[in-house]
C-alpha cells in the first residue's frame, strides 16, 4: 500500500510569535521554522506502517514556497521515499491546499492519506476533512490509534468526553492527534541519504487547480493582555483574596 503524507512548514512551536507593526500579519522574517508537530506524527505513523510491512511506499507532499523542500527532506530523512512539492504561496487558504492535495491524490492513488489534525500556525484543523469531502473518501480525524487490516482501517479518535473507534474503508483520510505516536529523530546518515531522494515539483496549473480567494485577512492583533497579578504569601492570604477581592468563592 502506498501512503501519502501531507506536511506543512510552520513556525517552530516554541518560538514566540510577533505581529507586524502595521498589523497586516505575523512577522516571520528570520523566524525559526519547522515541520508542523502533527505532521511529524503523521510521517512517523507512515514509517511505522512501512516497518510493519503494511506500507510499501511513502510519498510526502507539501504545498508552499521553495522553502517547504526543507520539510520534505526532513520527512525523507525520517523514512519517506520521495517528495512532491506543489509550488504556491506560504499562506494559501485551506480549501486551496485541499484542492491541490486532491489533485495529488488523483495522480498517486494512495491507499491511505495521513495529515496532521491541525497546523499550529493557522490552528485551522480542516484540510484533512476538506480533502476527504473533495476526494469523497471516509475520514477519521484526531487519531490516537491506527490499525490496518483487510482493506479497512480501525481508528481510535480522541473526542470530547472520551474515545470513539471507527472502522473506515480504504482509501481513507486520517488526521493525527498528539498521542498517536512519539516521532523519532532523524539520524545523520539518513539526512545525507534524503538529499538524494527524488522530489517532483508541480504548479497549481499543472495539477489543473485554479487557486481562488475566499478569505481576506483584515488585520491581526495581540490578544488583550492580562493585567499583572500579585503573589500571595500563604494559603490563608490566597483564600482571603479569592473570597473578598475576586469574590469567586463563597
Amino acid at each position, binding site marked *: 500500500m502506498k501512503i501519502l503524507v501531507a506536511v506543512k512548514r510552520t513556525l517552530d512551536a516554541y518560538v514566540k510569535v510577533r505581529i507586524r507593526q502595521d498589523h497586516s500579519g505575523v512577522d516571520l522574517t528570520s523566524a525559526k521554522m519547522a515541520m508542523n508537530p502533527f505532521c511529524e506524527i503523521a510521517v512517523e505513523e507512515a514509517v511505522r506502517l512501512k516497518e510493519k510491512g503494511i506500507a510499501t511506499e511513502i510519498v510526502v507532499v507539501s504545498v508552499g514556497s521553495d522553502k517547504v523542500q526543507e520539510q520534505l527532506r526532513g520527512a525523507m530523512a525520517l523514512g519517506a521515499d520521495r517528495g512532491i512539492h506543489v509550488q504556491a504561496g506560504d499562506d494559501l487558504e485551506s480549501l486551496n491546499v485541499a484542492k491541490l492535495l486532491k489533485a495529488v491524490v488523483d495522480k498517486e492513488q494512495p491507499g491511505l492519506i495521513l495529515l496532521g489534525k491541525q497546523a499550529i500556525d493557522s490552528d485551522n484543523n480542516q484540510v484533512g476533512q*476538506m480533502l476527504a469531502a473533495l476526494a469523497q473518501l471516509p475520514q477519521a480525524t484526531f487519531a490516537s490509534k491506527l490499525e490496518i487490516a483487510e482493506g479497512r482501517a480501525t481508528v481510535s479518535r480522541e473526542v470530547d468526553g472520551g474515545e*470513539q473507534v471507527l*472502522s473506515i474503508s480504504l482509501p481513507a483520510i486520517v488526521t493525527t492527534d498528539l498521542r498517536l505516536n512519539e516521532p523519532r529523530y532523524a539520524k545523520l546518515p539518513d539526512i545525507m541519504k534524503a538529499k538524494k531522494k527524488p522530489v517532483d515539483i508541480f504548479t497549481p496549473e499543472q495539477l489543473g487547480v485554479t487557486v481562488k480567494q475566499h478569505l*481576506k485577512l483584515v488585520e491581526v492583533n495581540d490578544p488583550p493582555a492580562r493585567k499583572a497579578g500579585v503573589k500571595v504569601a500563604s*494559603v490563608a492570604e490566597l483564600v482571603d483574596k479569592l473570597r473578598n477581592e475576586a469574590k469567586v468563592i463563597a
Partner: protein
Amino acid sequence: MSPMKVLILAEHDNATLKPATLHLVSAALQLGSDISILVAGQGCAAVADNASRIAGVSRVLLADNAVYQYQLAEALAPLVVQLASDAGAVLAAASTTGKNVLPRVAAALDVAQLSEILAIKDASTFVRPIYAGNVLATVQSLDAIKVATVRTSAFLPAPLATSGQAPIESVAIATAQDQSRFVSASHNVSARPELGAARVVVSGGRGLGSAENFKLLDPLADKLGAAIGASRAAVDAGYVSNDLQVGQTGKIVAPELYIAVGISGAIQHLAGMKDSKVIVAINKDPEAAIFQVADYGLVADLFQAVPELAKSL
C-alpha cells in the same frame, strides 16, 4: 436585523441538548434573525423539543434516523450541505463533532471554513485565534455562505423562551453509507461538571508526579464543585485521561476561576485557559511562566499547599 438565514448544528448526544447550543444561538443571532437548528441523530426527539424552547429560534429541523446515530461526518455532511443551500451562514460548536463535520461541509459547498470564531464584527467579518491564541486575526469571508465553528465560551448563552416553542419540522433526507462504521465509544464518566462548562476548573500538571498524586486535587475540586483539567504533560504521563487536556490542542476553557497546580505555563497550555476570569497558580518555581498570567500566584510546594487550601475552604 438582517433576514439572513442561519443554520446551526445542535450539539447533543441523542439524549440531551448540550449547553454549547445555547451559545451558538446567541452567536447566530448576531448574524441574522432566521435561525434553524438542525438536530441530527437517532431517537433524539427530546433534544429537538429542548432546542425548540430556546429564545430566538425560528424552527428546529429534526433528522431522526439510524444513519445519523453517531453523527459520522460521511453521513452528516451531505445532509447539512443540502439544508445549507439557501442559508447565509452555517455554525457549529468548535467541539470535536463540529470540527470533524464542518470543514467537510464547507469544502462540499466550495466555501472556506472559519475555525473557532470568538467575535462577530459584521455579517461577513469574524475574529478568530491563530498561533495558539497568541494572535487574534480579523478575517472577512468573501463567500456567499459563511461556514464557521464557534468558540462557545466567547458567546453568552441564549435564554430559554418565556413562552411558546418553535415549530419542529422533520427532515426525511437520509442516505446510507458504508465508508465509515461506528465500532465503539468509551466515555469517561465523572460526577464532576463538564470541563468546558464548569464555573471552576482545577488543573494539574507534571508537578503532581503520578496518577496517584493527581488524586490530591479531588478534595479541592470537591469543595469548589470544580471540573478537573490537566496539562498535556500530565496526560502524556498517564496521570489522567486525554479528554481532560486543556490547551491549544485540547479543551479551551474560560471559567470564573482556574487553579493551575504544578503547571509551568507553556504557551500551548495558556492558549486553553488564559481567558479565565480569575487565574490562580500554585508552583514551587517563582520563575514559572504561569505566574505571568495568574491573578494570584502562590510560590509553594503543591503537596503542602493543595491539602491546606482544600481544608480552608
